[in-house]
């Protein structure tokens, strides 16, 4: 018998029943809920007269619509306010755990799940949000779902799933100094493309991934969806177990010992077969900057904006031309010549303490450049914010001319008041550079927190490795 991949093991452990084809009913251990994709699901339950199957697996939090300033005044936009209030009404009436905006534990759903120990190795985790892939960093099977599926999981604790293919992305060797998890994942997407992982669960492996902290692994798995994969994952090791220990929702005592023993098996067997294997040389990865309107459109900081004419594919050339036009860039220009108007440090990709520390290290003792209209740091959760403040990082940013905000999704998708104006160019630590993502006509360049901080200080993209 051939060995199993990590994904095979997680899948097999959660099959409730197999349908006739390769579709199965999978049991869901953790359901994270936010205000945007859940109201229609709760309404659907009510209309059908159904009760949730198991409410103590659900954790709910508002994050997309919440303001990042003047919280004590509530939410100014009445439409956003209704959505957040609807979440609160829906979950509190059912006894679901809820962290309101006033709670220090509130934050981006993908930051607080792991922070609270609500995300555990070996779990199946779902959320009506594509960046649910983040939680796979813990050796969990974690997928983003639509609202109909949110309703399905609420009603049945299960999800109908077709088994995905197994893909291994191995980042071999060590990255150089100044190269972060964000650079690794952008380089991977640049290599395999935004549909490179479609239909697959990607396991990220190799020395460079094992060397990452849990925060870094979450950054990588977070963007698996940007490579088309609904699930990304990393095998469990001591780094995973150390992170989970003593978190509020983590098991304790005898259960902890039992859980750790089971979690240590959560890795692919040496003889496991993958449908696709991609090897990437870690030493070749430079800090990355996206130049276009798809996360696969990336260039190393030392590189140039590519020439669409050289793509060798007519549809791709048209896409690149459109992207350059939208982004207001010329083919062949050095990436370091691109000036920025705004800088956003935050999001479920890069809103954790390690990210904020990395940015602060670059900013310390420097000033935001004159041409930068707004540089902001939006911590991923209230607890991240609190910890950063205990370390004095808020002062580092404020003294440099950054704004220090309250936690939420903020300008990653601009559902609240934080957004780009038409034509504005942003160095952003978020995950999507789609047209209009950060505001109608806004231009997004995806970078790591250290590179965003460096751009804020220089006023244009610059190699953070040259700044020390």
């Amino acid at each position, binding site marked *: 018998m051939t060995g199993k991949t990590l994904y095979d093991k997680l899948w097999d452990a959660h099959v409730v*029943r197999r349908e006739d084809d390769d579709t199965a009913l999978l049991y869901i251990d953790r359901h994270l809920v936010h205000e945007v994709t859940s109201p229609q699901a709760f309404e659907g339950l009510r209309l059908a007269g159904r009760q949730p199957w198991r409410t103590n697996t659900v954790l709910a939090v508002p994050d997309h619509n919440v303001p990042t300033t003047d919280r004590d005044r509530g939410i100014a936009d009445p439409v956003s306010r209704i959505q957040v209030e609807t979440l609160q009404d829906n979950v509190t009436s059912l006894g679901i755990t809820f962290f309101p905006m006033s709670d220090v534990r509130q934050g981006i759903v993908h930051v607080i799940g792991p922070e609270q120990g609500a995300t555990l190795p070996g779990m199946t985790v779902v959320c009506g949000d594509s960046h649910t892939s983040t939680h796979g960093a813990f050796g969990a099977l974690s997928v983003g779902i639509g609202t109909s599926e949110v309703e399905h999981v609420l009603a049945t604790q299960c999800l109908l799933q077709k088994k995905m293919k197994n893909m291994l992305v191995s980042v071999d060797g060590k990255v150089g100094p100044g190269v972060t998890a964000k650079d690794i994942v952008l380089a991977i997407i640049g290599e395999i493309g935004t549909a490179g992982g479609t239909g697959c669960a990607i396991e990220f492996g190799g020395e460079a991934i094992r060397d990452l902290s849990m925060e870094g692994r979450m950054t990588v798995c977070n963007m698996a969806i940007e490579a088309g994969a609904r699930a990304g994952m990393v095998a469990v090791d001591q780094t995973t177990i150390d992170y989970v220990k003593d978190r509020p929702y983590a098991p304790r005592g005898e259960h902890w010992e039992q859980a750790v023993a089971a979690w240590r098996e959560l890795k692919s067997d040496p003889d496991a077969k993958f449908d696709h294997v991609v090897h990437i040389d870690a030493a070749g990865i430079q800090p990355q900057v996206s130049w276009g309107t798809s996360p696969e459109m990336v260039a190393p900081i030392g590189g140039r904006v590519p020439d669409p004419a050289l793509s060798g594919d007519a549809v791709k050339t048209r896409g690149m031309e459109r992207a350059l036009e939208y982004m207001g860039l010329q083919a062949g220009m050095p990436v370091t010549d691109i000036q920025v108007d705004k800088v956003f440090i935050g999001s479920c990709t890069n809103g954790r303490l390690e990210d904020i520390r990395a940015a602060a290290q670059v900013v310390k003792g420097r000033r935001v450049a004159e041409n930068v209209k707004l540089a902001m740091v939006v911590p991923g959760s209230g607890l991240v914010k609190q910890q950063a403040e205990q370390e004095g990082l808020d002062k580092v940013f404020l003294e440099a001319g950054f704004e220090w905000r309250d936690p939420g999704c903020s300008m990653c998708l601009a559902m609240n008041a934080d957004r780009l104006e038409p034509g504005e160019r942003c160095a952003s630590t978020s995950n999507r550079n789609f047209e209009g993502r950060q505001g109608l006509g806004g231009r997004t360049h995806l970078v790591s927190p250290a590179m965003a901080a460096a751009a804020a200080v220089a006023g244009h993209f610059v190699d953070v490795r040259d700044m020390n």
Partner: protein
Amino acid sequence: MEKFQRLTAKVAPLDRSNVDTDAIIPKQYLKSVKRTGFGPTLFDDWRYLDPGEPGMDHSQRRQNPDFVLNDPRYQGAQVLLARKNFGCGSSREHAVWALTDYGFRAVIAPSYADIFFSNSFKNGLLPLVLDEAIVDQLFNEVLAEPGYQLTVDLEAQTVETPSGERFSFQVDPFRRHCLLNGLDDIGLTLQHADDIRAYEQKRGAEAPWLFPA
């Protein structure tokens, strides 16, 4: 859910690859707590020249004459012809609700993003996959022939062109069954409630930390 069996309808060609769900329905409309009413803001940033906000009368906004859905010849289209990796990005089911609310019943593309693909089947929208070369051919035919229609037959798993040329497509048998009969997934799953309880018993013994009191 509305059944999908057989449809003969006009086709609108959207000649872009990697169309993301942010483009299909921009974020400001996701603040709605309803499933309906997203049609007028489908492809909002491409379809209108002025910025849109929830609550506006979208019929009074300035339309972008260069956008395909504003071309009079494609009015009433129920089939959207698209390029590869359609529906990538965010999991927002609002993207599917916007397409169906506008009037689309089927999308034809060489490939889809996984979550969009799955969401479509839950809402009576058939995302069907044809080879890139066939999709190319269909683009050429739609552009050449005003009033061009396709017949999509889910029972037979075929797409038929006006000239009678037929292409067959694959679809997962379970999803096909649900769509043909307009079945509610939740109802089907709850028929297996005993299996779910049996799983919980067994799993609870193996991994008790997942079942705290």
